[in-house]
């Protein structure tokens, strides 16, 4: 789960990180009040959950109230990659002398948490990674949750060149690690971390992604979710314990298991059809899941044929069959349904469906060929 910069900034502030003075504003009068507290010049930063906002003109430096009012109004009309700007972070402008990149993330291959820092530029970090990979320094935590004094010195010295900055940097990195672990983040990033004319260090940006699997133990974080960035069908699917991603085609797919669901979409495409969605009903599916899945898929008016592809393991085919019958009783199913069932309780399932004149297939290829043909009629 991603959150906005202003929300991440508040988590950083609570964690003792040196964030820049300022707050988020929705209306221009709020922005003026904040600017009067911090003093001009201030930076107006559009809050969107997509990259490239700087290039899209979403960040403005303003020197006085008139400029603020003018640019604030412009930003409020701005749409960045289809997302309208609703909130704007107003922060005191900093006289930047040097920029750094800092982040904490998980290295899946090593199964360890890694702190990444670079003194070479901040914002252009992806470019630095390509052109000058040696400038990117990594510190692995070796399963610990904090800095280890013994191995820390060479790392911090490779990032900052003066003892003062090294001491300040150690505090910042320590605080960032704490925020990372306390909130089960998958990424906590400051880009850029800056040094101003007086040699003071600031987190001039804040980015946090949370581990979706860990949200169950952080109920307070759910309120940070910006629903405007979530597809309503995907959200509803999640509530119903289904995994759903919408695509642009017309063949609706209901599958058990993520791998098989992806493979089903791939083979629909290879066979000349266009998959309308990814949908995994998950393991141990009860009949109700099929009903919920069909409801979500039928809302997509592009869908003109539906493929149900089930390989029973933990999922019982007869549960799926009962779900299909129940759904047909409750929903107005005006598109053809193609069903493939194999595995646990396949025979019982086929008997249930045969009673309702639903033809079933045993192989994926036969079922895909059939549904693709129907989708072209």
């Amino acid at each position, binding site marked *: 789960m991603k959150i906005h910069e202003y929300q991440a900034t508040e988590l950083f502030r609570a964690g003792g990180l040196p964030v820049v003075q300022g707050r988020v504003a929705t209306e221009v009068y709020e922005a003026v009040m904040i600017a009067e507290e911090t003093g001009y010049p201030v930076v107006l930063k559009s809050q969107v959950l997509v990259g490239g906002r700087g290039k899209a003109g979403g960040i403005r430096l303003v020197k006085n109230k008139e400029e603020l009012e003018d640019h604030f109004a412009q930003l409020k009309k701005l749409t960045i990659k289809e997302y309208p700007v609703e909130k704007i972070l107003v922060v005191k402008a900093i006289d930047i002398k040097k920029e750094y990149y800092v982040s904490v993330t*998980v290295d*899946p*291959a090593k*199964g*360890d*948490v890694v702190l990444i820092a670079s003194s070479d530029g901040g914002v252009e970090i992806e470019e630095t990674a390509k052109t000058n990979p040696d400038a990117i320094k990594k510190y692995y935590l*070796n*399963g610990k949750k904090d800095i280890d004094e013994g191995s820390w010195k060479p790392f911090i010295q490779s990032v900052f060149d003066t003892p003062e900055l090294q001491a300040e940097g150690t505090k910042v990195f320590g605080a960032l690690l704490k925020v990372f*672990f306390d909130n*089960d983040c*998958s990424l906590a990033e400051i880009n850029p971390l800056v040094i101003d004319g007086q040699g003071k260090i600031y987190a001039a940006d804040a980015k946090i992604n949370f*581990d*979706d*699997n*860990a949200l*169950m*133990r952080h109920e307070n974080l759910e309120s940070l979710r910006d629903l405007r960035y979530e597809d309503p069908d995907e959200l509803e699917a999640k509530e119903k314990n289904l*995994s759903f*991603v919408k*695509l642009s085609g017309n063949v609706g797919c209901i*599958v*058990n*298991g*993520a*791998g*098989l*669901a*992806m*493979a089903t*979409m*791939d*083979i*629909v*495409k*290879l066979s000349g059809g266009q*998959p309308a969605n*990814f949908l*995994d009903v998950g*393991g*141990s599916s009860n009949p109700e899941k099929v009903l919920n899945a069909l409801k979500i898929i039928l809302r997509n008016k592009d869908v003109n044929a539906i493929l149900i592809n089930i*390989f*029973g*393991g*933990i*999922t019982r085919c007869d549960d799926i069959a009962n779900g299909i019958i129940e759904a047909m009783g409750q929903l107005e199913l005006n598109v053809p349904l193609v069903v493939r069932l*194999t*595995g*646990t309780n396949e025979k019982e399932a086929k008997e249930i469906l045969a009673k309702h004149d639903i033809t079933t297939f045993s*192989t*994926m*290829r036969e079922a895909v060929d059939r549904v693709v043909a129907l989708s072209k009629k």
Partner: protein
Amino acid sequence: MSVLIDEKTKVLVQGITGRDGSFHAKQMKEYGTQVVAGVTPGKGGQDVEGIPVFNSVAEAKDATGAEAAIIYVPAKFAKGAMLEDIKADIPFIICITEGVPVLDMVEVKTALKGKNIRLVGPNCPGVISPGKSKMGIMPGHIHKPGPIGVVSRSGTLTYEVVYNLTLNGIGQTTCVGLGGDPIIGTRFIDVLEMFMADDDTKGIVMVGEIGGEDEQLAAEYIKKNVTKPVVGFIAGRTAPPGKRMGHAGAIISGGDSTAEAKREILKDAGVAVVDVPDEIPAIFKEKLKL
């Protein structure tokens, strides 16, 4: 032969009194797996399907000589279950549980360091050595003993592959489901190495998907070390970038993590990469003269 488990492996089931745990303990036992113990804290002394239940892994191990553990507990208890196995020095652990937090897995990986313990999963279907033993949730009847080793990041997609092999009379030595999470205990390379060392395994199927770089690492390994024929399938060619496709690890985050990139890298390593799982049997029939 088979890898990881066989008819002699003594298995304990964590979470045996739960819905999934009891159902699959029974299924495993019926398949022929030596399920010697169950563990649920506070429920010691009971029995499930004739399997004695203990309060702790250490107790179960002492009483029964269990040498492998399979975990069916909810996600928030999965870390504790794995750490308990590691503490009790259970040499082989399978974690079926889906939804384990990533930082919990960092703790588990740290606890595994320096120990001679193998973990498979989490978020995986388990391991089966057809005709000998099943530790997992896969439907046993679609498998049959034979010469092919199967290793996969997926569950039901693995069943699809196995089903196609079996339908064509081609059996399997062992099928290993690695799991769909970013941090997992066992990776492609570990299992490829086991299949290379197992004389009965004559050919290998590798089922990958979008996200991460394990298939790329496997390709490098295959190029250097694998002399047996490998057939590959990669799921997610139609997956849009940046979207998590069910599995926590299945997300395209850069050029190398797309299905097409992985397919090309595997082809370059000499792997026969197929478009549809039902194309796999014919390749083995030709290469292994089956």
